[in-house]
């Protein structure tokens, strides 16, 4: 989660954009819901307040889709991207959002098929980039290789890259 925000920031740096990435501040517990944030802009900005009205919300854990916290501060213009095997419409209905602002991608299934485990974080990045075009896909992939290459090894990196590409293409196809 925090790594996904870190990857997006690194990709923004490669694209010569201005960015911030920060976790929800405070102690972390294994398994507890966690939140991480990004600000990305093509121009310099100076803002160190917390983010309360996001332009884009990404929910990686589908079990959180009923939680009130995930729609806090989400306005009509915001984009909501969820990891879910459902269609966008019922997800939007449950969250009280407009169907047009909700996107779903079955990142967990794609992760199982590409990485071999239900680790949907990188797969979700493909969806985020596919919809928002905030950074080029290639920059995300290059950043992933550099940041995680040593830790994951070449086989798992390839799986992660495949996951990113597939969610990117799936969401672009719609």
């Amino acid at each position, binding site marked *: 989660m925090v790594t996904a925000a870190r990857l997006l920031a690194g990709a923004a740096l490669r694209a010569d954009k*201005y*960015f911030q*990435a920060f*976790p929800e501040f405070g*102690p972390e517990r294994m398994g507890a819901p966690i939140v991480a944030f990004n600000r990305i802009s093509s*121009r*310099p*900005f100076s803002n*160190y307040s917390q983010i309360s009205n996001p332009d884009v919300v990404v929910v990686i854990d589908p079990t959180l889709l009923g939680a009130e916290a995930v729609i806090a501060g989400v306005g009509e213009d915001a984009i909501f991207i969820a990891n879910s095997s459902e269609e966008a419409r019922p997800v939007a209905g449950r969250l009280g959002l407009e169907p047009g602002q909700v996107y779903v991608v079955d990142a967990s299934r794609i992760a199982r098929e590409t990485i071999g485990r239900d680790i949907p974080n990188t797969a979700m990045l493909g969806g985020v980039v596919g919809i928002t075009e905030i950074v080029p896909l290639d920059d995300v992939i290059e950043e992933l290789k550099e940041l995680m290459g040593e830790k994951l090894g070449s086989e798992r990196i390839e799986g992660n890259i495949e996951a990113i590409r597939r969610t990117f293409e799936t969401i672009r196809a719609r």
Partner: protein
Amino acid sequence: MSHRGRRTGSGARVLRAPAPAKGTIVKALRGADAVAEAMRQVNPGVVAAYPITPQTDVVERFSEFVADGEVGTEFVTVESEHSAMSACIGAAAAGCRVMTATSANGLALMWEMLYIAASYRAPIVMAVANRALSGPINIHCDHSDSMGARDSGWIQIYSSTVEEVYDNVIQAVRIGESKDVRLPVMVMFDGFIISHLLERVRVLPDKKVQSFIGPPRPVYSLLDIDHPLTYGPLDLFDYYFEHKRQQVDAMEYAEKAITDVGKEYGQVSGRLYGYYEAHELDDAEVAVVALGSTASTIKGLIPEIRDERIKGGLLKVRLFRPFPTRDVVRRLSATKAVAVLDRSASFGADGGPLYLEVSNALGRAGAKTKVTNYIYGLGGRDISHEHIMRVYQDLTRMARGRLKPGTRYLGVRE
């Protein structure tokens, strides 16, 4: 970002800075990484430190540099912050270049040693990731830790972005070691808000940093056996007062050293540093004084404030010790109303520590400016754009005599 061409003051970091240094690399770093990176480039003789959230990441990362042989530092792992500062003082007295880092309760545990470091004129550089003091226990940002240490004799520099804390740590080495100054320097950065935030940092080449700081030049070294001397002897009513008077002088000399080092750093890095930063103050009717990350947030909001037809400016305080009293008077006495934002409370006092300085400076200068105080962000409570807009709106009412100055609290349940 500004659509009207931001004006900056003479003491400020100006927009038309010299060209960036050759070999500068833009990296994505968190505040804690940036401090560790600066420490790696400084390559101090001794680091003694004890971990405490949110400073821990600084020490962790630096200890990796030590383990990997990227620095030649003697890294002393100690059992407490009191011991960390004691070890730093000993090493500095021996003639070493010394650095450390801490936060909140760790700084509190160093207390008696802080005064000793300053009175030994030991130019130790310490990064402080600002965090609230217990109790109740809280790990998030406010400035009560370093504000409490304001009278300990340390130079105090506040940073408001990740890049600034990197730049300030490097400059602190030169400032503290300057001739006639020889004082320890604290470099503050907001805990979590800056320490755990990843953003762009223009990292200088190692060689540039090394040539900027120069080799350590031990003065009054305990290891210089040809010139034996004593540190910390009994000093009663015969000379203690004179020694304290010299510390006062050293702080005065520091003002020039800070300005000179900031200019020279600008030549080396392309990033000029002044004693303070001024934004849209030239024609300002009202102004806010702030430090730390909040000052950066306000800076980003100034165009919006101007769009609201508020002639608002910002004075960002970089140095809290020595305090820029003359600059505050020069830049703010023409304004009608000034709000001072404090991220710490001074219980029983007539406002927060920054407010007391600004209010005193303007009052003694006979300025007619109304000065008001806002306490905010204790224990990491967020300061939002709405809060800041409210401050500027309050100021315009104050300037017209429709609101009385006083101490108010932003974002607290009352």
